[in-house]
């Protein structure tokens, strides 16, 4: 459908719940207060690895106001999504075989911040005081922090099977993917380059810390909890607690961000549910900012060894990656390192070791395996381009992916246009220095580029739409609203498909008792999947109206849709390219972003207002990952040193540059009105683009994230 035929989609539309967000009326999970509610606090391990010889809660229980205490001795709930063989989506089959089971309280404890006990008391001060009265006798064990160290002989074994995380078949094997033959590829190359890149653990650091309110009515549990997917959270919680799904209600109305940190259910949900059950009263568990940093998860740190072969014309012949991902002591995700597939190359081999360490756990964070992987490979390729005396933009245009994995066509392909449009808008030729580090004086400017392709898969979801006699349409969708504006997008899609203004559409969301299944806000797929269900439900409702006429009196009309579209023989991807100019102060090591252009093909843009916010936000976050963020550990004692906003040095108003956003709109015929993914894709190329710009400015390749002042001063010294 052509854009000028659309009345709502593609038009900048303020959020339908913006009023609630600017007046303080929006109720977040932490704002929920129930009569007789208790407050909970969690005691966490001060050691990176220790066995609990004994735990004595008697003094804490005797404190007036303390109602109940949970420890590993009286509560053995398995947290399914918390640690799994293979790091894949937890399900009943995986549950049967997984050896590295994670409980809500584990013995031994395997990282600083792991829950040891939880207290519910009449107020938060009493609960905090009670934590000091719990006496734990720890047998302190050895620990290991870095993934490469964890695989060396003689090092402490975090699990009996060793420190290499098991795969889905319970084998201690790395993940290997191959195409062609890399050795033959290197032999056919004119030049071969090798290098090592590392990335740090960075925390999602969403503004809303984890919180949960649990209440039981008979055998029915209700959790008010910030989750990115109420449906998944419900099925996870029901499975972990051995309850029928319909006996669990998840409510997540307003949500203070997640970026992957609030996928699935969390141990906090299970702990709060169990405290509430045992105390016979509603319980609110509030986590501090430090607990949120070390007790949930962040992006897995990586070590990446690349070997790349090219012909003298700068054509890629072979790429080999050996990578190590630090998963913490539980495997919450794959630990993959994405990026090799960005390049057209006949010979590829990737071997990834997901490794257990005694650092905090790694898991989903905006484009889980890509920002760190893209940083590694796109730094490597940028370096190869310079060494081959090529402009990096030309190198990319020559070698970038044209078909997925060199075989499967994309539903549409705009990567070349993204790069050309970006280079033009950015004035690449003017800003890029053919001779890196050539600026005289201490202030050095440079330009960098990177690009991306990001999955935009189709899939299952549901929606219900109801029309009453007053002409008001109500859309029921199981989305939460993490921040991208899903609720508004769903209203806009319904309005467009029904041919009514957005004001005629209200949305019921964020409550499993009222809403049908939705995939959840992860994987940048809510608009594509749940949006498609909304469009199909609207079309079905329109048909009913045509047949039966508008409802009168107490009548209503309702329609539902449960589409599960598939792609045949094609791959759907969003594309993008980021161009960055930086200024490096060689005397202070400070990096400042001067100009930033982000070009994206995310298919048809549903709402330019909110889409722009997502691009700006992702790019800004990427700058933070490139230059600032790191959870540092003391190597002597395994203590995290920089847990919190200040320590992680998130970008502030003063650090954040203007992000110029350009959309290349397309309609590939799939997804609602051609929508593709957007939310995660804006972060994935940002890190590499900044790092490459720093190289162009100072002429030194920064191979370890984050690119902090001390590192810059170090290479320039």
């Amino acid at each position, binding site marked *: 459908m052509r854009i000028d035929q659309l009345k709502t989609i593609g038009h900048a539309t*303020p*959020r339908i719940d*913006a*009023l*609630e*967000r*600017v*007046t*303080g*009326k*929006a*109720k*977040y999970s*932490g*704002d929920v*207060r129930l009569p007789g509610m208790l407050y909970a606090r969690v005691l966490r391990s001060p050691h990176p690895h220790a066995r609990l010889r004994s735990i004595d809660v008697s003094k804490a229980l005797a404190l*007036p*106001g303390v109602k109940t205490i949970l420890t590993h001795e009286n509560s053995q709930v398995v947290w399914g999504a918390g640690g799994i063989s293979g790091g894949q989506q937890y399900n009943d089959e995986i549950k049967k075989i997984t050896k590295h089971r994670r409980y809500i309280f584990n013995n031994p404890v395997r990282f600083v911040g792991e829950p040891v006990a939880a207290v519910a008391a*009449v*107020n938060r*001060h*009493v609960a905090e005081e009670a934590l000091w009265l719990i006496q734990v006798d720890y047998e302190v064990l050895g620990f290991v922090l870095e993934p490469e160290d964890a695989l060396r002989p003689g090092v402490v074994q975090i699990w009996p099977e060793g420190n290499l995380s098991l795969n889905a078949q319970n084998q201690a094997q790395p993940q290997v993917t191959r195409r062609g033959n890399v050795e033959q590829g290197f032999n056919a190359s004119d030049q071969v380059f090798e290098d090592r890149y590392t990335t740090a653990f960075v925390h*999602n*650091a*969403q*503004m*809303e*810390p984890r919180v949960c309110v649990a209440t039981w009515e008979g055998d029915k549990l209700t959790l008010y909890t910030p989750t990115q997917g109420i449906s998944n959270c419900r099925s996870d919680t029901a499975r972990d607690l051995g309850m029928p799904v319909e006996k669990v209600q998840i409510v997540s109305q*307003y*949500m*203070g*961000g997640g*970026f992957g940190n609030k996928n699935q259910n969390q141990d906090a949900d299970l702990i709060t549910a169990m405290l509430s059950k045992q105390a016979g009263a509603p319980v609110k568990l509030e986590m501090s*900012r430090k607990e949120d940093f070390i007790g949930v998860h962040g992006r897995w740190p990586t070590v990446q060894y690349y070997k790349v072969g090219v012909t003298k014309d700068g054509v890629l012949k072979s790429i080999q990656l050996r990578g190590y991902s630090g998963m913490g002591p539980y495997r919450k995700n794959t630990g993959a390192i994405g990026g090799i597939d960005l390049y057209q190359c006949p010979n590829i081999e990737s071997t990834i070791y997901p490794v257990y360490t005694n650092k905090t756990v790694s898991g989903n964070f905006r484009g889980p395996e890509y920002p760190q992987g893209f940083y590694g490979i796109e730094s490597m390729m940028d370096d190869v381009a310079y060494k081959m005396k090529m402009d990096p933009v030309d190198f990319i245009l020559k070698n970038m992916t044209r078909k997925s994995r060199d075989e499967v066509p994309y539903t549409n392909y705009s990567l070349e246009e993204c790069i050309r449009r970006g280079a033009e808008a950015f004035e690449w030729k003017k800003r890029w220095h053919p001779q890196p580090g050539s600026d005289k004086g201490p202030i050095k400017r440079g330009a960098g580029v990177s690009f991306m392709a990001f999955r935009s898969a189709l899939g299952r979801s549901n929606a219900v739409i109801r029309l009453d006699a007053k002409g008001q349409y109500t859309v029921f969708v199981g989305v939460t*609203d*993490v*921040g*991208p*504006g899903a609720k508004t997008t769903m209203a806009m899609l319904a309005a467009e498909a029904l041919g009514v203004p957005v004001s005629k559409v209200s949305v019921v969301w964020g409550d499993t008792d009222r809403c049908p299944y939705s995939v959840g806000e992860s994987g940048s797929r809510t608009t594509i999947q749940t949006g498609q269900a909304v469009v199909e439900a609207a079309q079905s409702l329109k048909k009913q109206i045509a047949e039966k006429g508008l409802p009168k009196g107490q009548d209503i009309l309702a329609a539902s849709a449960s589409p599960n579209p598939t792609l045949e023989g094609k791959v759907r991807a969003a594309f993008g390219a980021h161009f960055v100019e930086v200024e490096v102060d060689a005397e202070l090591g400070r990096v400042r972003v001067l100009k930033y252009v982000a070009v994206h093909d995310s298919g048809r843009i549903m709402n330019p*207002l909110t889409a*722009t*916010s*997502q691009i*700006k*936000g*992702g790019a*800004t*976050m990427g700058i*933070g990952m490139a230059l600032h963020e790191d959870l540092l550990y003391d190597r002597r004692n395994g203590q995290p040193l920089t847990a*919190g*906003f*200040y320590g992680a040095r*998130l*970008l*502030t*108003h*003063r650090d*954040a540059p*203007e*992000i110029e956003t350009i959309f290349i709109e397309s309609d590939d015929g799939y997804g609602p009105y051609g929508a593709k993914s957007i939310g995660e894709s804006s972060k994935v190329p940002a890190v590499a683009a900044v790092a490459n710009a720093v190289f162009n400015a100072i002429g030194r390749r920064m191979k370890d994230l984050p690119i902090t002042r001390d590192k810059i001063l170090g290479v320039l010294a």
Partner: protein
Amino acid sequence: MSKTKSKKKISRRKFLKGTGTVLAVATTAAAPPPLEAQRNIVTDPSVPRTTIRVMVNGAERRVEVEDRWTMVELLRDHFELTGTKIGCDRGECGACTVLLDGKPVYSCSNLAVWADGRSIQTVEGLARNGKLDPLQQAFIDHDGPQCGYCTSGQLMSAKGLLSRNPHPTADEVRAGLTGNLCRCSNYNHYVEAVLAAAKGGAR
């Protein structure tokens, strides 16, 4: 605690000036409002407590607080003004920013007792007579809030900024709001919104 004492020395005239609703206060000041019952919080009799009088969004309140409560606890738990958020509870993020006598402060880093004799404005007090503050409208128009969790704090810092500098430059807006983190990182839109509101005469 010397800070507490010096704050308490605030003159009545200054107190009235700070409230912005002199007439209403003049009447209520003569007859103190009744002590509010503890509705939501189970207090501990062994903990030292103080009765305070505080103007909250233009209405005078009298309440007994535990000396250990922070201002944000008082606002959220007792007054049920949950628009003010807790992001870090340690003065790093600004989600809890409120105006104390017209100046932005982190309510997580002030004690409730320090509010005695002073005036607090929260996000709930921005709209007047059902009409949004121009800053609120600009935040809507420019899509300032994404997840919205930092929004109240951004609004209150912006309000404080415009009251002392009604026509800031973009850099002055960034400086004025730099104590308010936004992890959705919608900084560009927030700055645009504040500039637009200032242009429209907001203060």
